[in-house]
């Protein structure tokens, strides 16, 4: 461990602002693209499911018409 | 026989585009006027001190040339795309890169060449020294066809899109950076009375590569856009 205390760790020898700024923005971007990729996937799967249900309903309605 | 007809195809495509441009004179005059106006804006914006203008002249002239080349690029394939003759060119048995080469050269003749010819006059406006004048003309002479070639790739990619114009500038401008760097550095070097053959040689090499590679890239871009 290079730092004596937690406040020293935060201060980063006077460069705290720059170090935490870059690590902060980095994690923000990484998280943002990761989460948005996952969310896109869930949304897409929901859309496909909705489409499947719709086709199922149409099929059923057509069958009822025939009956 | 076959060689002869390839040559004929090249000439006829080239002639058609140049004749069309000369009939609608605005296509030739507008980029030139734009070139002049952009150059006029800079002294107004940064101040009229002659020393400052001399220092910034190469950059300003080149940025203006770059922007006015962009202006004509959108029309390069647009009209042919709209009236269907682009499809004819693609469907014809002749190699598409050849007709594309003719079209790009026609574009350069109608937008790049007038700029090269007018550059000495505009350079006077920017208080450019006499020794830098020849460098300006030479870099423009080698550089503007290069701009047409690279720009035509972007134009080919975006010709099928409704609002392709802005997107095309976004795609093409980053690719223009090497041309800008070497051209302005050639002019800078020449205004210090040093030899600028090296930069010109690099520009020439880039032009040679673009001559060979760009028509292929443009043709595949056009094929994507048309179908």
């Amino acid at each position, binding site marked *: 461990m290079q730092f004596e205390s937690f406040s020293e760790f935060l201060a980063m020898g006077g*460069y705290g602002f720059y170090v935490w700024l870059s690590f902060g923005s*980095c994690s923000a971007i990484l998280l943002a693209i*990761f989460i948005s990729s996952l969310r896109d996937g869930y949304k897409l799967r929901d859309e496909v499911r909705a489409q*499947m249900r719709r086709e199922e309903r149409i099929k059923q309605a057509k069958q009822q018409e025939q009956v | 026989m076959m060689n002869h007809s390839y040559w004929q195809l090249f000439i006829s495509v080239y002639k058609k585009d140049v004749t069309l441009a000369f009939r609608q004179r605005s296509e030739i005059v507008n980029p030139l006027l734009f070139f002049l106006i952009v150059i006029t804006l800079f002294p107004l914006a940064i101040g009229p001190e002659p020393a400052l203008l001399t220092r910034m002249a190469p950059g300003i002239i080149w940025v203006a040339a770059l922007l006015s080349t962009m202006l004509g690029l959108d029309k390069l394939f647009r009209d042919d795309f709209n009236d269907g003759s682009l499809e004819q060119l693609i469907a014809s048995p002749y190699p598409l890169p050849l007709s594309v080469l003719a079209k790009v050269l026609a574009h350069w003749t109608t937008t790049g060449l007038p700029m090269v010819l007018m550059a000495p006059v505009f350079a006077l406006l920017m208080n450019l020294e006499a020794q830098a004048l020849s460098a300006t003309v030479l870099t423009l002479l080698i550089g503007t066809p290069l701009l047409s070639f690279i720009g035509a790739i972007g134009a080919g*990619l975006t010709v099928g899109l409704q609002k392709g114009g802005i997107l095309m500038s976004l795609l093409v401008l980053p690719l223009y950076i090497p041309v800008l760097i070497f051209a302005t550095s050639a002019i800078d070097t020449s205004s210090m009375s040093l030899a600028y053959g090296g930069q010109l040689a690099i520009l020439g090499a880039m032009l040679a590569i673009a001559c060979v590679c760009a028509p292929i890239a443009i043709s595949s871009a056009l094929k994507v856009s048309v179908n």
Partner: protein
Amino acid sequence: MWKWLHPYAKAERAYQLCNTLLPYFAVITLVCLVIGWVWGLAYAPADYQQKDSYRIIFIHVPSAILSMGAYSSMAIAAIIALVWQIRNAELAVISIAPVGAAMTAIALLTGAAWGKPMWGAWWVWDARLTSELILLFLYFGVLSLYHAFEDKKSAGRAACILAVVGVINLPIIHFSVEWWNTLHQGSTITKFDTSAIDPSMLWPLLINIVAFAGFVGLVTLIRLKNEIIQHEKHRPWVRELVGRGE
């Protein structure tokens, strides 16, 4: 090798491959990222010259390497897509581009935050910064071209052509910019044997590079899965898959 590779041109097989690879990438990324950041931030010794501000290197260098690595892999995928007409390669191009753009953005942001205390300015027109910025423009060009097309089939092909044109231009841009102006410090770890960097700093840096590479792979796989589903959503296998709740 072709016999082995060829089935992956089929969307279903590619999707399954993504699923197999995903957990490995996820574990590697998570483990390396945690180790790399804790080691880099807390345990690596301070630089004698740049003090603690040098710790930004642990994200700046990996993201810069990966921004270029992602572009080259995108270009390779684009060439494969254009030459062999493989749809999955096109989808891969579109999946890599946003991740590469993110890496480039991180490299630029962290570079700015490092430049302020070291050079006294957030931004200097130095060669590497400028070419990194142009790289970001190229990524944006590929992405916006893809999204501009209504028809996703020609969108993919157009994006591939642009990616290939970009990769031919990239070295030219890089060397022209380098030649134009150089202020940036030389590479730190180009040669491993005569490395200018102490092992106590090199190890966390290497771990971070692995972590970022893993992250690029991970997110690319997730996005590639999405793209495959998007393009094959009328196929029975996708329906079955989605119906199972996967």
